[in-house]
């Protein structure tokens, strides 16, 4: 009798191991609240939750026994390559970098300036050029944000 196996995604096993480590970290942090907790103490529920996380991450890892790697993936190195190719495509890396830079820039360059630059650069990059229209769309977006959030919603912006 042939058995059907679920496919494991590239990187999934590593991620699930990281979740197990994270659960152990949460358990240690919960233990720090009041050591081994009594049934009704500030630490009892966090310890309980951490144990639930730990148990479920163990079950997730054990479930890999019922899964198989994509037959097109030859070995661990190839799996790493496929994972990087899927999730670290240039536009994803660039957007992540721009997002982090944008958040860092808000503090010293003000919200409107950094937002305009972020939008303009991202639009130009994503749209493969089209500089003029990207700059205009960014300016319109800034105007709408100002009108909507500052004038209508009266939100305080950084």
């Amino acid at each position, binding site marked *: 009798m042939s058995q059907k196996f679920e496919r494991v*995604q590239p*990187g*999934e096993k590593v*991620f*699930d191991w990281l*979740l197990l480590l994270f659960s152990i970290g*949460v358990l240690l*942090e*919960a233990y720090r*609240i*009041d050591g081994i907790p*009594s*049934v*009704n103490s*500030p*630490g*009892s*529920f*966090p310890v309980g*939750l*951490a144990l*639930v*996380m730990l148990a*479920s*991450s163990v*079950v*997730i890892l054990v*479930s890999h026994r019922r899964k198989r790697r994509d037959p097109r993936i030859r070995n661990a190195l190839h799996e790493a390559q496929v994972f990087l190719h899927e*999730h670290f*495509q240039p*536009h*994803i890396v660039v*957007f*992540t970098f721009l*997002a*982090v830079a*944008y*958040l860092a820039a*808000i*503090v010293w360059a003000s919200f409107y300036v950094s*937002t305009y630059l*972020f*939008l303009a650069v*991202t*639009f130009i990059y*994503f*749209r493969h050029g089209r500089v003029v229209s990207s700059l205009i*769309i960014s300016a319109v*977006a800034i105007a709408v*944000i100002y009108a909507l*959030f500052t004038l209508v*919603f*009266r*939100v*305080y*912006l*950084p």
Partner: protein
Amino acid sequence: MSDTFSFLLMAWLDPQLLLLTALGTLAGIYVGAIPGLSVTMAASILISFTFSWDINNALALMVGIYVGGVYGGSRTAILLNIPGAPSAVVTAFDGYPLAQRGEAGQAIGLSTVMSVIGGLLGTLVLAGSAPFLADMALEFAPRDYFLIAVLGLLLVSTLSGKSLARGIFSVALGASIGLVGMDMVTAQPRLTMGSMELLGGIHYVVVMIGLFGVAEAFYQLHNLTKVPIKQKVDKIIPPLSMVLKYLPLSIRTSIIGVIVGALPGTGGDIASLFAYDHAKRTVKNPSSPFGEGAYEGLVAPETANNAAVGGAYVPMLTLGMPGDAVTAVILGALVIHGLNPGPMLMIETPHIFWFTVGNLALANIFLLIFGLTGIKVFSKVVEVPKALLIPLILVLCVVGTYSINSNMTEVYWMLGFGILGYWLKVFGFQMGPVILGVILGPLLDETYRQAMSSVGDSGGQFLLALVTNPLSLVLTTVIALVLLGQTPAKTWLTSQFQRN
């Protein structure tokens, strides 16, 4: 009685509330329809802007967004074969083949009318059942609340992901995030990793915006260049004979939608799947084979997912347990405005309940108006490229998060949760259970400790109370059955049962 009527009609008679409901519904249709935007994302961002508003105004806008958004997803499912929302995934099965046959206008018109019928029936059930349920809930002990929250989170874990273990992990992760900060009773820091900044806890709106906004924006980067195939839309208003023909199916699937929607954590996506399955099993002679443009395959999910809206409000308003991710956000809005969702809401602030009922009905009327008009403008707007949409989503997330406490650290947390959410999503974890965990985690902790205190901190007495109190026994049994249903024991028991 006259008070009830005045609260019911408040949104209908106040021009400002009327306008906000209309705006919310219209915006919801677009938010729900544009792939990459979601109702939960919009409601999460919106909650931070409406902090300072009057509660009725904030609720009117959110109810409109919710009702419009659940429906809006169907439009792109029919026109572009891209469901704008998870609840419209099933709609695409028959909606898109209908559009390919040149019947896009009729399909949109029929789905609009059926969505409104479902929405109104769901509202009717909410109005009829919630007061009784709230009365019953007043008798609940903290132990019962604890069990209901456990059951809700368990159902979320079971129904919303690819495995129970992943669902339970997501819920526990969310609940742990919800517990970060000082303990309510002893003021002891919990899960703060020694950080002073975390003593005040992590605001759940920050988590919501990160998980639903930023994570989705990153996830959509994989489809940056996907170009949808456009369809021609002609006559949109369906003939009355057509509406009457599908009305019985619509009523049946409305009931399915309300029941499924009322289960904590399920929502319109699961309701539409159940309804589609029901239609497939019960309709003997569909207009076309299912999956090839059957109107029955369009009517069933569209009625059910809008009926689920009313259903989702039932546990949220009567028990303080959100029915799905959007009602979790709305529950947050009620708490922020100093209200107490749960059975006391009906006693302390009945006007909020009746206002919500009236407002839901009004939003459905606006849905009918906006759903049957403006299709030409709509087809243009939904074509907005992701290259423009994704950076704008990030900017909105920044504005939304910063506006909560004017704190840039929370914005960095939001990005962190967004990146975490992206990876969780990639590896099959759902965001809904995490958010429900964040919301229900503190409630679970509180009710658990109250229940323990009531039995003198005795674990044995607590366990005994679970089986000696009738309601607790029912809830414990249901929890045990749900857990059992996820184990190999279920298969074994089923085979034994069939053998006998």
